[in-house]
């Protein structure tokens, strides 16, 4: 059973307190195993590094003991990974431990949607102070969660933050473009600025989405949850009374419809966080999107 090679070439010395290798010196087989666990568990970076570090220490102990028993490094790595079980199954189990959030996390995920529902339900979108305070809150909470391990509920806020930043920069550039048109460069300058800005902003959004998809495409979908609702509402209102007329405050039932939409999205976001299984999470997002379409159909 024992191989001809000892384990010392990889630092697995046989003494009880002998030195053990770091992750960079780990056997390729063990590194691959941990990489497969990581890709199946889809955790946030903080939890992921903690778990990988813990599993790594387990392999160090196990390899040390097997080497002491006379196994070669290759044999020891084979035995250690076999005893651990299939990496994908382990990754899935770890995912299920961490995928279900607490009630407070579910509430946190729902809050940005509810804020939008409140904004439209109480016709507060004409109140500049409310809009400023909401935007500030959304961006602050997003930054806080970004710095604290990017938990699942963070993605709910991230979608709105990106949208807020997009709109703020759009308005600023529009004003700058108008200024330039008036004083320096002739008419139409704002449209040149916009023609540059919109593709750049979309590329930037695309880059962020790709980064999130690399961790887990479901989280990217979760982040994008309000986007279809906003786009469909903009189209529906433009087709109906026209956005300009709506902007002047002429349509109360439109506000109600938008408020209902975001209430539904808030419920879906909370449900998404509370669910453990990936399949159910996908179902929650799909049902929410269909519900949004139904609400738009009913009110627009």
């Amino acid at each position: 059973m024992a191989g001809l090679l000892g384990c010392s070439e990889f630092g697995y010395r046989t003494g009880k307190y002998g030195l053990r290798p770091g992750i960079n010196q780990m056997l390729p087989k063990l590194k691959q195993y941990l990489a497969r666990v990581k890709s199946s568990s889809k955790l946030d970076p903080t939890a992921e590094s903690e778990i990988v570090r813990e599993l790594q220490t387990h392999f160090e102990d196990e390899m040390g003991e097997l080497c002491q028993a006379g196994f070669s490094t290759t044999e020891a790595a084979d035995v250690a990974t076999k005893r651990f079980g299939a990496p994908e199954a382990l990754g899935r189990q770890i995912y299920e431990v961490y995928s279900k959030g607490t009630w407070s996390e579910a509430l946190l995920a729902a809050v940005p949607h509810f804020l939008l529902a409140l904004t439209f339900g109480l016709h507060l979108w004409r109140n500049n102070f409310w809009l400023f305070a909401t935007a500030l809150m959304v961006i602050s909470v997003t930054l806080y969660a970004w710095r604290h391990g990017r938990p699942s509920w963070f993605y709910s806020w991230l979608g709105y933050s990106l949208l807020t930043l997009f709109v703020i920069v759009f308005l600023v550039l529009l004003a700058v473009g108008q200024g330039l048109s008036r004083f320096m460069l002739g008419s139409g300058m704002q449209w040149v600025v916009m023609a540059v800005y919109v593709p750049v902003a979309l590329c930037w959004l695309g880059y962020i989405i790709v980064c999130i998809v690399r961790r887990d495409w479901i989280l990217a979908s979760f982040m994008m949850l309000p986007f279809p609702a906003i786009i469909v509402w903009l189209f529906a209102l433009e087709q109906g009374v026209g956005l300009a007329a709506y902007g002047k405050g002429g349509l109360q039932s439109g506000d109600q419809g938008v408020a209902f939409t975001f209430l539904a999205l808030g419920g879906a976001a909370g449900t998404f966080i509370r669910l453990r299984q990936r399949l159910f999470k996908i179902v929650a997002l799909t049902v929410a999107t269909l519900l949004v379409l139904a609400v738009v159909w009913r009110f627009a």
Partner: protein
Amino acid sequence: MRYGRELLKGSTDHLLLSLIGQEPTYGYQLIKEIGKRSDGYFEFKEGTIYTALHRLEKVGLIEGKWERIPNGQERRYYYLTKMGRSVLNEKRDEWRGFSAAVNLVTEPANMG
């Protein structure tokens, strides 16, 4: 054996809480200790122990802390929390009642 596996599945939390309650310990040590004390009867896929430990930690029954061991390396030691201690006591009582009842039914002569 399927029956044994089902029993083990239902008892994993109890076993882990009991051992951690006796002495703070880390994953590898836990696996070895369970194997040793049960004379090899309990055989886990080792990865499942870590899933169970993280599940127990998430619900607040145990708490993990990185600590340095004598060779200078770090291991994640698990401690029983106050809530974990009370759940362990409940599980222990539950198990005693259950095993006594099973014995009464299956081996009445031994119960004196």
